[in-house]
């Protein structure tokens, strides 16, 4: 289907099902039950899932295929957000021009940075991208304040021109982002017995764009261009010896992944029209690296999984507090209960980053292929066991000669 082989089609379908049915999948617990806090099916969080999914897919095109570890990708996301908000300020509240502009601006920005950074490889490349990103971050905070609004962040105001729209709605408030009239924040609620499912217009726009981005990533992975990028990763020197200039290929990959980041930034601004410099900080770049590695760098589905995983647990872990733990472990004897809660306490609530750090280290140490490799190992182990059982059965019926 769509020029994909059977395996890739099934991957695309899995991701499509996950994305489109997310309001159901992420809301498995009835609203008034004790477990309702593990529901993640509300619009804000679901939007973050898919937006960071796009970001990670794009990052993976660079890191997973070429092996160039960029520590400055958040800069493109920030640039995308700023340009989208400027579009809302100047043109109107339709999201399409905003998203298009953010992709283009991020692409140009990536072209500039990539052209310089890709002259070096390995650790030097990482440091160069880091330097550029920190530079943009510092500039956004200081000199570029007329464009970025400094520490406050860029926001919409009632005085914005909005040539194709209105500066203010009839009741005097700031208009909301929309897609040809369909408001991004409009949500349809479906109550089914004790469950309540929310279907948000903005989320579905993001999800559809994410699916398109995912499809494009599959095509890039399977194309001759993708093969070339993989060749760069495995042995760039040999590529050069064969008389091939790898720079245009890596630059193209860099720009594409920068455009993905810009797309994510544009969507982020479309869902919530403000942009701040903290989105460009290097810790934000570190986060997308974490997502990609955790899910599985170089695999198709890994970054999406990683992004969902990190955003889900970030949200859930931060919500758990000592009281919740006490109710969970109330079946234990008193002393034990307190002890268990005391041990778990540093890892939950505000301690989420500690859990994330430990998890990330464990993944890098034991599972360099991320969650995807973990899944494959379990699958391999299961099938080996099955094969062994089968072999034994066969051995019984056919005694060795």
């Amino acid at each position: 289907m769509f020029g994909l082989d059977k395996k890739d089609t099934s991957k695309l379908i899995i991701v499509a099902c996950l994305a489109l049915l997310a309001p159901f999948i992420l809301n498995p617990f009835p609203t008034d039950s004790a477990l309702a806090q593990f529901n993640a099916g509300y619009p804000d969080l679901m939007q973050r899932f898919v937006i960071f999914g796009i970001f990670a897919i794009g990052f993976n095109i660079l890191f997973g295929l070429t092996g160039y570890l960029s520590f400055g990708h958040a800069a493109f996301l920030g640039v995308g957000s700023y340009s989208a908000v400027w579009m809302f300020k100047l043109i109107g509240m339709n999201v399409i021009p905003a998203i298009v502009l953010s992709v283009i601006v991020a692409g140009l920005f990536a072209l500039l940075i990539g052209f310089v950074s890709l002259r070096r490889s390995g650790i030097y490349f990482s440091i160069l991208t880091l330097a550029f990103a920190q530079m943009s971050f510092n500039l956004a905070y200081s000199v570029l304040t007329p464009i970025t609004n400094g520490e406050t962040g860029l926001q919409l105001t009632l005085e914005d021109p909005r040539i194709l729209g209105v500066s203010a709605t009839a009741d005097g408030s700031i208009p909301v982002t929309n897609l040809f009239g369909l408001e991004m924040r409009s949500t349809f609620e479906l109550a089914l017995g004790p469950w309540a499912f929310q279907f948000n217009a903005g989320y579905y726009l993001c999800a559809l764009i994410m699916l398109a981005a995912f499809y494009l990533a599959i095509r890039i992975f399977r194309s001759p261009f993708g093969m070339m990028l993989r060749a760069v990763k495995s042995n760039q020197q040999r590529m050069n010896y064969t008389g091939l200039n790898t720079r245009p290929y890596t630059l193209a990959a860099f720009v594409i992944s920068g455009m993905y980041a810009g797309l994510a930034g544009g969507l982020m601004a479309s869902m919530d029209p403000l942009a701040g410099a903290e989105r460009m900080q290097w810790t934000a770049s570190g986060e997308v690296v974490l997502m990609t590695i955790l899910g599985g760098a170089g695999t198709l589905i890994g970054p999406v999984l990683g992004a969902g995983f990190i955003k889900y647990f970030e949200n859930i872990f931060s919500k758990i507090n000592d009281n919740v733990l006490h109710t969970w472990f109330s079946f234990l004897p008193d002393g034990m209960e307190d002890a268990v809660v005391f041990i778990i306490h540093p890892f939950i609530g505000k301690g989420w980053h500690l859990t994330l750090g430990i998890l990330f280290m464990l993944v890098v140490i034991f599972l360099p292929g991320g969650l995807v490799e973990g899944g494959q190992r379990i699958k391999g182990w299961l099938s080996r066991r099955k094969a062994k059982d089968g072999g034994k059965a066969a051995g019984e019926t056919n005694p060795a000669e």
Partner: protein
Amino acid sequence: MDAILLQILNGLDKGSAYALIALGLTLIFGTLGVVNFAHGALFMIGAFCAVTLQRILNLSFEFVDETQTDFLGNPLKVKTPYVEAWFGPDIGGSIIDWAVPLAILFAIPIMIGVGYVMERGLIKHFYKRPHADQILVTFGLAIVLQEVVKYFYGANPIQTPAPDTLNGVVNLGAAIGMDIVYPVWRVVYFFFAVLIIGGIFCFLQFTTFGMVVRAGMADRETVGLLGINIDRRFTIMFGIAAAVAGLAGVMYTPINSPNYHMGMDFLVLSFVVVVVGGMGSLPGAVLAGFLLGVLESFASMNEVKSLLPGIDQIIIYVVAIIILLTRPRGLMGRKGVMEE
């Protein structure tokens, strides 16, 4: 003239922190070939050693003094630190006052221990893995260390003042007839950094141990073939590098109250410093540290800022980009280091 001298001082002072951290990073990189993203965290742990020592010295007991009353008319509760009770108020008080310099002695064994455990427990397993993996695992470690410190000490900066006698300002220009007023502690920091850097270079240059380590940096395999256990020596060097970062952190606490993410803030800069100086070159790291410090403080002068707005924020990165593109090995980089 005064202003320029003042900026040079400022720069040397800022640069000494960069140089110390970059020196440690380069020691690790030059010996073990590992890119250590957790080095900023070591700096931070050093700073929190000072905080810890200060808290230990301030441990106190309470007793009720019947002769005095507080403003509510109740008997006054007097808090006395144990140290003052043991050594008398004079000596005890000055011990507490000198907590930060004393923390140097306290931090050295701790930092060497932390470095040793880190190398044996984690980094040892990453020699054969690609540099990207080393960056990632140490990045993860940095997050963990940072969060552990945050858990125990909270997220707010903690005041750790310098001793009273070193807390004021001094007029450095008096001798040459100029007026350059400068905080004493920053002068102390600069000389401390020079001392440490000099100490490390002497150690590497004039001791047998240092000679073996230098030989190992040049050709690890051959040194190994000569029957020398080079891994052990490199582990010790890792401990020393951790101690250098830690001491830089201890002495930095009076300048900037330590908080849990100070390491990350310095890490990015010190990596830039190392790359500018040339990966694996110790003199390069020190030179680049001071150079970037001086450039940064000149860029923050008002005259320069009015000419090139915002230059003070980005000067270090601009220099790094120019250097990397024109002299790819950095200022004093060796051939064949990290060139794959």
